[in-house]
Structures are given as structure tokens and as C-alpha cells.
């Protein structure tokens, strides 16, 4: 078995989770009680949704891939909780958490996993392709790093239209070696685009640790300097720290229209995807260590208990409600119908879906 990775995380990560140093940060202190409870609820919902998916996958109902966000909740929760009207997000295939954070429903998300017509992409995308453009969520993409130029383009459009906004481009630590990411970095910096590149560094790109995949593995965000961009590193188990540091990047985007690279250190408890037996590249002890001492959902629960915002009963209620909601969504997915054969050739072209006096093209566009 390969030697476990030596993770080059900041010092704070070596300590078990404790009271957050960022609780007093204005962006956190200004949250109301209700907002804090809502944030915790959202994190719990991600946790329970993802865990419910495991059972469905093991029942053989989810074909293809399933990349779970369990352990990384604070990254999506912390960043997305800051979004405004003209802030957009785009990510790779570990996209369930981001979808739930922007407000997608568990029913449509669960149904999409089993390919039902009631799914958020009508059964046409699957786990890796959740989209909610009405909530500024532009997917859910399967090719590692491919979303980076797309997100840079979303930021370009926001700037072109003279709006104060941004685009968060999430990617994993494995994506930083893709050419498309470097091209996006260059364009974002060269053209002063309000992009916030969020590298969700969970230490492993599939089965390959950073040490084995990345030249200069010490700190991925530091590459931003090669592109004349600002950068920062964040302890991703602390949702308050995520919020506080991301707020600065958001300000830079809104007010200066300049990009930032944020490396958020986090961890995933499960394999890269469900197909990953997760035995060849790390120790069980390592996973247990994170679960027991640095779990972000647990950490925030503790934080809110300390702040007397949460009580143990309320927390239990919230978690049970989330579990029940996930169970109901699983049933909804099971009972939903598949798309039909006729549906296969819909939603390919805007013109074909919107035939009318304004559509001018003719001829054959779907072939036998």
C-alpha cells in the first residue's frame, strides 16, 4: 500500500476543531440567530442527503458515478451563504452540496440520481450534472477543470453587463494541473474578471495524493502568484473561517473586479466516488481522525451550542427532519417515472424546443 499522504495543511488544521477564531468576524457576528440556524440546517441537510444516496447506490439504483460531499459541507455552505443577486457558481462533479445550498429540492435532486423525468435535469444529466440557472447555479460538470473557463466566462458576462457580481469556480485539488484551469487563471487576471477560484483541497485527486500528482505541492493557491492574482488558504472545517475569508475575495470581485484563488482545505470521508474501494491510498485511522475531531457539521453544531443559538433538542430535530426529508425524497425518486423514448430527442436545440415565428432554421437536425 502506498505511503499515506503528508498533507501540507495550515497549522490550525492539525488541531481538533474548537471555538472558531472567526466567530467575531463582522460577516459572522452580523448573522441573526435564524440565519445561523438556517446555515446549520443546510449543512445537516447536505450531510443526510449524501448519506441517503449511499444506500440507494448500494441498491443498484444509481448507475454511473456518485461523488459524495460528505466531510466537505462547510466549503459549499460557507461560500454560498455569502452569494448575492449577481453572484454565480459553477463546479465540477462533486456538485450535490452546492445544489442543495443554492436551494434545489431534495426530491428533484434524488430523482435525477436515478434518472427519473422528475429529476432536476429530467433524467438527462445524472449525479454530475445538477443545474439551477434560476438560482445562479451553472452546473455540475464532468470533465475535470472544464468548468474553469466556463465560470470565467460567467464572470466576464457579469462585468460586460456592468453588474456588481462574481462567479465562484469550484474545483478539486486534482484540477489545478489541467491546462484549461491555467488558461482560465490567465484570462481572469489579464482581463480583471470577478472570478473566485475555489480549490476544494481534500488532499487526494481520486487515488493520487498531492505529493504524487503536483509539482510544488506545498500550496496550490500559491500558483496564483504566477498569474498576478491574489490568493488565500482557508481551514475548510470551520464554516466561519470560510465565510470570513471568502467575504474578502467577494469584496475584491465586486469592488475591484479582480480575481482571487482560494484554497480551502477540507476532507472527504468516502472514496473519490462510490466505485472507489478507498483502500489503496489512505489509512482508516486518518479518516477516523477527521470524523472524530474535525467534522465540519459537528464543529458548527458545537459552535452554535456554545453560542446558545442551538440546543441539543433543536439540533436533533433538525437532523431528524433532514433524514426524514431525504427518506421521502428517496421514495419520491423510486415512484417517479422515467423519461420516454420520445424525450430522448428533446432539449438538444433551443430552436427545436421553441419552434415559432422567430425560429428560422429548417431541414433535418435529428437524424435517423
Amino acid at each position, binding site marked *: 500500500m502506498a505511503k499515506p499522504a503528508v498533507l501540507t495543511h495550515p497549522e490550525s488544521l492539525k488541531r481538533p476543531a474548537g471555538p472558531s477564531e472567526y466567530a467575531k468576524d463582522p460577516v459572522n457576528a452580523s448573522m441573526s440567530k435564524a440565519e445561523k440556524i438556517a446555515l446549520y440546517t443546510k449543512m445537516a441537510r447536505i450531510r443526510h442527503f449524501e448519506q441517503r444516496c449511499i444506500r440507494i447506490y448500494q441498491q443498484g439504483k444509481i448507475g454511473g458515478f456518485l461523488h459524495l460531499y460528505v466531510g466537505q459541507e462547510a466549503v459549499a455552505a460557507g461560500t454560498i451563504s455569502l452569494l448575492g443577486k449577481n453572484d454565480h457558481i459553477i463546479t465540477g462533479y462533486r456538485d450535490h452540496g452546492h445544489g442543495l445550498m443554492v436551494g434545489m429540492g431534495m426530491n428533484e435532486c434524488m430523482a435525477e440520481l436515478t434518472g427519473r423525468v422528475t429529476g432536476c435535469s429530467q433524467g438527462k444529466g445524472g449525479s454530475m*450534472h445538477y443545474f439551477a440557472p434560476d438560482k445562479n447555479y451553472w452546473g455540475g460538470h464532468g470533465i475535470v477543470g472544464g468548468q474553469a*473557463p466556463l465560470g*470565467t*466566462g460567467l464572470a466576464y458576462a457579469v462585468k460586460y453587463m456592468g453588474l456588481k457580481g462574481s462567479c465562484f469556480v469550484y474545483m478539486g485539488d486534482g484540477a489545478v494541473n489541467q491546462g*484549461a484551469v491555467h488558461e482560465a487563471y490567465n484570462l481572469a487576471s*489579464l482581463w480583471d474578471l470577478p472570478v473566485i477560484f475555489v480549490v476544494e483541497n481534500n488532499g487526494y485527486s481520486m487515488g493520487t495524493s498531492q505529493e504524487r500528482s503536483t509539482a510544488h505541492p506545498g500550496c496550490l493557491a500559491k500558483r496564483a502568484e504566477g498569474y498576478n492574482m491574489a490568493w488565500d488558504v482557508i481551514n475548510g472545517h470551520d464554516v466561519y473561517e470560510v465565510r470570513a475569508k471568502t467575504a474578502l475575495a467577494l469584496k475584491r470581485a465586486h469592488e475591484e473586479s479582480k480575481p482571487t484563488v482560494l484554497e480551502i482545505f477540507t476532507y472527504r470521508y468516502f472514496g473519490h466516488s462510490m466505485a472507489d474501494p478507498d483502500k489503496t491510498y489512505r489509512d482508516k485511522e486518518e479518516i477516523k481522525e477527521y470524523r472524530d475531531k474535525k467534522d465540519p457539521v459537528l464543529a458548527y453544531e458545537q459552535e452554535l451550542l456554545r453560542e446558545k443559538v442551538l440546543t441539543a433538542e433543536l439540533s436533533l430535530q433538525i437532523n431528524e427532519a433532514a433524514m426524514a426529508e431525504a427518506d421521502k425524497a428517496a421514495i419520491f425518486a423510486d415512484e417517479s417515472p422515467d423519461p420516454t423514448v420520445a424525450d430522448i430527442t428533446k432539449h438538444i436545440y433551443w430552436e427545436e424546443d421553441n419552434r415559432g415565428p422567430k425560429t428560422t432554421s429548417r*431541414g433535418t437536425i435529428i437524424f435517423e
Partner: protein
Amino acid sequence: MAVISYREALRAAMREELKRDDKVVIMGEEVAQFNGAYKVTEGLLKEFGPKRIVDTPISEAGFIGLGIGASMLGIRPVMELMFWSFSYVAFDQIVNNAGNIRYMSGGLINCPIVIRGPANGGTNVGATHSHTPEAILASHPGIKVVCPATPYDAKGLLKAAIRDNDPVYVMENTILYNDKGEVPDEDYIVPLGVADVKRIGTDLTIVAHGRAVITSLKAAEILEKEHGVSVEVVDLRSIRPLDEETILASVRKTHRALLVEENKPFCGVDAQVAYLIQSKAFDELDAPIHRVSSIDAPQIYCKRMEDQQMPSVDRVVAEALKVLA
């Protein structure tokens, strides 16, 4: 009606659409300050300024992906590839993203982008700069592909492409850039999916696209004058969508078909056209369908041989006579 070049026709299309819709942005390598590698965008920067006419670094995956991302929010980028041969660098963005995002989102999103540039051989620039990828791009549902052969079609198709709410890829030809033709001054489009009979005839149907149309028209002249054969030339203009009816109507009239393309033989555009004709006009055929493609090898450098590799007028005439035997 003015007589202008294919290049000027493309420029006029872009100028008119830039004026018509302030979401239209022209983007690409050397399109602004350099006035375009092939001078297609000459003068546009001066007229519209750097916000509308944007020079990009050499970064096809990056800037084409950027254009696609921006189009999701309503910008209408018209991106120039210096050569369509460079599209392979951005293949993931061009095919996986532009082509699939609408489908994978269940119809929630559309990408109204245009990618345009020369897709041709015959210019003595070697194998990696001479690609004609219309067939491989058109094989992806979600993508539209057009190939104008004349200035009139170039302007009309580019305008239609810019107004189209789906990704449209425009295959131009550096050799055709200087060709002149009549182009109306007033606003018009050539709708996608409509072929054009460029020459009416009765004995043989030639189906072609792009510069192969021009080659076929020359061959048709020779066939008429020297062999007394009346040849009809159908210019596809649009690859996907494809005007099947015009092709079939012509074959029903002449009963013999010769397909001419600058693609290499394997799964070029004509492979699809041949299937169409034999499947829907089988009983009209008086001879098997013949095809003249580029000779099946990477594009050779030696100029005299490249001219032979491409479908030449001589090869088209010879093959036509075989079909008519």
C-alpha cells in the same frame, strides 16, 4: 447590389449584427489590433472599440470556454479560430460543453455562441493546419455547422448563425476569402438547413459544400461543353441541419449522384449524404452513388501534390463520367 468579396461579406455580417445587438462580442486571436490574421475583422476595432472587439491570448480552451460561459448569461460571442485546425485544442469546450449543456440541464440553459474561422486545405501549410472538421462536429447532436461557398451565403449564414440561440460553427475558407460576388446591401439572412441549387441540370446531380462547390461548378462547365452533359450542382450550405429534400429532389430528377467534398473519405459529410440518398431515393438511382473526397492521408506539404490530393476539377470530371457510364 454591391459586388464584394467573401471576406468583406463576413465583415459586413459582423458589423451589422454588432450594431443590431449590443450583446454581440467578437473575440479571438489577433482580431482587434492586428485587424485579423486574414483581415476578416479589419476596421471593426476602430468602429466598435475594445469592449466589443476583443483580442485573446493564445488560449483556445480558455477563451472559447469563456465565450460559452458568457453565452449562458446572454452574451452572444462570435469567436474566431485562426484555423479550425486549432479547435482540437478546445475540443472539450466546443463539444462537451457547448454541445451538451442544454441537454444535461434538461433544457434549462442554451449557449448562443458562434465559432467561425477557416476550415480548409489547399494552402500549402501542412497536416496540422489544414483540417476540415465539419463532419466530426456535425456528428454531435447539440451543435450546428454551416459551410458557405459564396459571399452571398457567407454573409447570410453568419448573420443567421449570430442570431441563432444554439451553438453554430461556421466553416470558412481562406482561398474563398478573395472571391467576389453580388451581395445585397439590405438586411437578409440565409436560414440554416436550406441548400441551394447553384446550377440547374438534368443528367447528373453533384452535391458539394464549401470550396468543393466552386470546383464542381467548374467541372460542370467542362462536362457541358466537352461532353454534352447537363450537370446540376447542389450546394449544401448547411451541414447540420441538413436540407435533405433539395438533395433528394435533384436525384429524383437526374437519377445519378456524384458527391464532392474536401473532407477525407472516412465519415466525411458525403458519407451521410450517400446514406440519405440510397435510403430515401433508392428506386431513383440509375447508377451507384460516387464520391470524390480528398485523398486519404494527412495533408501533404508539397504544393503540386496537395492540389492533387484535394478534389480537383479533373478528378471531378473523370468521376462524373464514370457515374454517367
